């Protein structure tokens, strides 16, 4: 009897140790890969961000180092952010000429849609790009510029063009196209761009204020 229990215990211990060894080896593999790939992945993300900023704000609009102008702003309902987000201030000849905002559309079909929105000094959208989303592949993912040109329709739009009540998708009586079968996604994006314009209107004076020399230090790059 005791020897049977003893054998069972020994067997349990043996399998436990084996499972533990596999877990350790697996964790070590992951840690090693993470360690080796993290700097490369971070560098790639930064390069992408730089290219992305260029896509939402035309290079002709500014002559300052846009990446270095990054500031951190506290979470704001109008930006849809729950964590501090970044913005980049564009200047030409020292004059405020535009801003790139990080915003979030929190009501996408599968959660947050992260956006980068370029707005010029007049409050006109210069470009919008989706930087991260989990929308259904092949259905809601056409908001991604790599999949379709849908997102381009925001360029040139402003608070008054179209009129505020037309800041909706066509299906809801607004001015923005959306593909049938996937209206939740574009609805969320349209709403987010519109509230980003509200945010811009509220903060325009602060953006346009000339930066005190010591305040212009770049905020540490945020990993996203």
């Amino acid at each position, binding site marked *: 009897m005791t020897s049977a229990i003893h054998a069972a215990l020994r067997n349990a211990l043996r*399998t436990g140790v084996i499972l533990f060894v596999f877990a350790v080896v697996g964790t070590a593999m*992951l840690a090693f*890969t993470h360690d*080796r790939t993290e700097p490369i992945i971070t560098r*790639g993300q930064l390069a992408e961000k730089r290219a992305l900023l260029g896509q939402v704000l035309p290079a002709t609009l500014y002559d300052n180092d846009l990446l270095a102008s990054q500031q951190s702003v506290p979470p704001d309902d109008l930006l849809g952010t729950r964590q501090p987000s970044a913005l980049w201030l564009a200047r030409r000849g020292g004059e405020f000429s535009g801003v790139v905002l990080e915003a979030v559309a929190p009501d996408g079909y599968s959660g947050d849609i992260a956006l980068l929105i370029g707005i010029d000094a007049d409050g006109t959208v210069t470009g919008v790009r989706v930087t991260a989303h989990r929308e259904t*592949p092949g*259905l809601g993912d056409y908001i991604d510029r790599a999949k379709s040109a849908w997102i381009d329709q925001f360029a040139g739009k402003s608070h008054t063009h179209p009129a505020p009540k037309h800041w909706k998708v066509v299906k809801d009586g607004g001015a923005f196209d959306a593909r*049938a*079968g996937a209206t939740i996604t574009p609805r969320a994006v349209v709403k987010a761009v519109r509230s980003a314009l509200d945010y811009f209107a509220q903060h325009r004076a602060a953006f346009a204020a000339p930066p005190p020399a010591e305040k212009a230090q770049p905020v540490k790059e945020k990993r996203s």
Partner: protein
Amino acid sequence: MMTMDEFRSLFHNGIIKQNTGLVQLLGLCPLLAISNNVINALSLGLATTMVMAASSGAVSGVRHFVPNEIRIPVFVLIIAALVTVIDLAMNAFVHPLYLVLGIFIPLITTNCIVLARADAFAAKNRPLHSVVDAVAMGLGLTLVLIVLGAIRELAGQGTLLSGIDLVFGEASKAFVLHVLPDYRGFLLAILPPGAFIALGLLIAANNWYKARAERRVHAAAPMPA
């Protein structure tokens, strides 16, 4: 080493006799979700094949050290670790490819074919055989995905190979076939129900074909006296 016959039978098994999509009906979640056009289907199929080959090889390599009672947790651990490693490595080293296949890699973890082949085949066979089996199973799945993707893309959008430029570069855009010009689209085919209906039709066709082949064999055999 493996003989030509073994090689052939593994492929016959993976692509026809035990096709994961049509016969085993395994891993339907990604199969139904991603088969809305040919390029998505091909991408998911290839990503799954790659992960299966790697995980079957790894499982087969350690099969003598894994007690039967804990084989499933160990296999899940191996597969999850491998998928994550592949995901990170692709992101870092082949970023353009990652941008295309990246969203499919996490989906593969929901795919039970990978675990099924690890448990049913790789746990009992040598690494080389296991890898070949995984590749054959993966290719069988890829074929079904492509056919399903073609049916749904054609019915849903009237095109074939749309989005090919995302995989093979801007130059390949010319390969997109607008089979039905000015087609207004058929949303049902793109949505999940379209996947179920198309897959049902494919399974029915496959069963009908097999039944007919069997009847022929019976008819050709001499009647017992």
